[in-house]
């Protein structure tokens, strides 16, 4: 049985190939609207990996400043999911076009997650063909398990 992955990215067209590659190894659930993530996690708590884009529209009801007008929505989401992620020991990959990964890393460091639980990957340096292997490696690092 394939491991379940939650893939959160508002861009459907441009992420089609990432999902296509992931589907070789994972059972992928896609979410385009960041506001829907909580509802999905409430009803499905068996995701073994969460992949989050960083730049996404700010969900309705959330102050634009909380997500830096959408530039940090993925970080905001990660912060909101901290408790869930820690409790279920779910590895996370922040998969982004942003080049300032050092700034992202500083933000993640302040969230007090488990060591190495969150990995930051740039879409340019981790292209679609390599994404699956990166995901497999990360899942194995955080929660060593047999994965198909």
């Amino acid at each position, binding site marked *: 049985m394939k491991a379940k992955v939650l893939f959160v990215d508002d861009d459907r067209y441009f992420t089609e190939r990432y999902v296509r590659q992931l589907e070789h190894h994972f059972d992928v659930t896609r979410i385009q609207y960041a506001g829907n993530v909580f509802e999905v996690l409430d009803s499905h708590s068996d995701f073994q990996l969460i992949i989050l884009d960083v730049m996404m*529209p*700010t969900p309705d009801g959330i102050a634009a400043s909380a997500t830096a007008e959408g530039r940090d929505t993925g970080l905001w989401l990660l912060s909101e999911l901290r408790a869930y992620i820690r409790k279920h020991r779910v590895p996370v990959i922040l998969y982004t*076009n942003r080049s300032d990964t050092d700034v992202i890393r500083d933000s993640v460091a302040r969230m007090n997650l488990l060591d190495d639980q969150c990995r930051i990957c740039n879409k340019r340096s981790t292209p679609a063909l390599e994404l699956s292997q990166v995901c497999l490696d990360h899942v194995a690092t955080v929660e060593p398990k047999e994965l198909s």
Partner: protein
Amino acid sequence: MNQSNQSSELSAVTRDRIMRFHARLLSHAPVSPIQDFPEICDAWREATDADWVWMWMYNDLSCQWELTAYDSKFDADVLLTEMFTWPDTTSILEFVHRIDAPVVVTEVENWQVSHIGEDFGIPWIEQLVQMGCNVFCTVPLLSPRSPQDETTPGIDLVNPIRGAVSFHYRTRDDFDAQPDDVLLLMGWLTASIVRNSYQAEHRSILGILNELAEKHLTSVRRRHGAARGEYLDALIALIQQQLNTRAVSIFYQVPFENRVECLATTGLCDTNASSIISKDDLSQVTYEANEGLIGQCFASGEAAVRLRNAARHSPKYIEIMDGAPLRNVAVCYCPIPKASYEETLPDQPKSHGVIRCVDPHSPLRKEVASSFSPTALKKLAFIARQAAPVLHNFAIRVQREFAISIIRHDLETPLNMICDTAEDIGTYVDSDQRIRWHDLMNLKTSAAFAQNLLDQLDPDPFEVADPEIEETLLEGHIVARLRHMLEHFAKLENDISIKYSGFSGSSFCVPPLFVDRALVERAFWNLLVNAIKYSNEGSTVEVKARVITSGIEVEVKNQGIGVTPEDRGRIFQPGYRGRSAMLRKQGLGLGLSIARRAMEKHGGTLNLTKLSDPTVFTMFFPQYLQNARWNS
């Protein structure tokens, strides 16, 4: 009631004192009202040999005269606290309001109501009696009014000076009446010194503000928000110190919106929930134009004050101090003005923001004041005017930084797709000896997105000097070029299909037009990509052309998030994005404005003809575009 002497010979002693008065004031180098006004009162005391001298200034916003200064020998600590409680400074409203010539009041204790034919009293007369005053004279400080003064709203920075000096005697015999013209001349000179004093203080504040701006505007930060935050903190500290006020909040316009949000504050709480607003939640503290006093100040560009205990003043958010809300305090609202060159449409606010100051302390009595002094208000207006361009600069930077991050993202995304697709192709092209259609379309579509983004960074299409006019078939040259890419994108983005009709194959097929193909293609692309992005999943986008008497119409229809009535008037504004669009996708908000300008370059139009169910945008190409020489 006695009047002052209209004319008499001055004694040598008096003449000498008056000459020394003029020499003293003319040689005085002004620094600030708080230092200069007591000096002025001292000069008057010496010239008139009075027991004490007060200076009054008129407060433009609270419409009251206020005791602003007294001479250095006046024992304020004893006389203004122990003997009686100094009333709210509205007391002298009627009396001083009317004077334009010196007025002498003798036998203060027996002074009766009557003056210039009207009933009014001097409400503080009892206090003067208690202080032992027997005679006093009040001289107006007059300065010329310019015609603009009557029509200029808000806080007048330095002109005209509306003030008065009153000098008091305990003993009638000490009072040496002087001619009106002598006293008026002294008043005019004093008014001039007062104006110079305001200006001197404003100049020193200007130095501080310029230093702040220099420091924070030029500082290099990864996120300039930090620089802006430091500037705002320093600005608030300056306002607190200069106005002797305990709490300050700065509100500024949300970009493209007719509302303000709180940028910085000494502390706020929600009056309903009584919960303190944290720094991270400050952007939720907003007022619409004309909502409450903040909104009114923002919309009208006019300052306002609310005095202590004013009724019906219940703002949504109030300042706190030491954790406790500051209720029933004096509050001042000062607009942050727009630049004089900025165009303001009738339905747009007249200012960019508001500075709200709360709970002033009186510089005279070292306690909470009932209002803001005239000098404080002039200072605040000056500070707001000087800070305005700096805050505007920061606002532009915020928008620019946001735009740059969107541009990077929107360029990086298709370029990554091109790279990834090329890598995909590399895995099979040797063996298959062909490229898969899906990958080919990915390459073409991604390249088109990247090119379109670069086009969006171009100046306004209307500024293109010479469009390249060539014979163009809307279907053959525009639709055909974009069709496959758009259909590929539409299918994968939202499972959308696109249906074209009316371009050809009927008796009214669309004739060739002489247009700039790149501009028209840009308009088509922007409209169709919008339609696809904001459509309901699985729906159909329709593109329908029809020939009418006056030209050609092309409608783009989609079933999707629609456009709200509130957004209708602004949707073509560069940079503006509707709320529902912002929830769906990030973007620059330039697509529709560019598309419209591209059509206008040809004398055509682009309009939103239906808001929703379906949303319809209509392009109109005038009939003369069928003529090859229309542009010559």
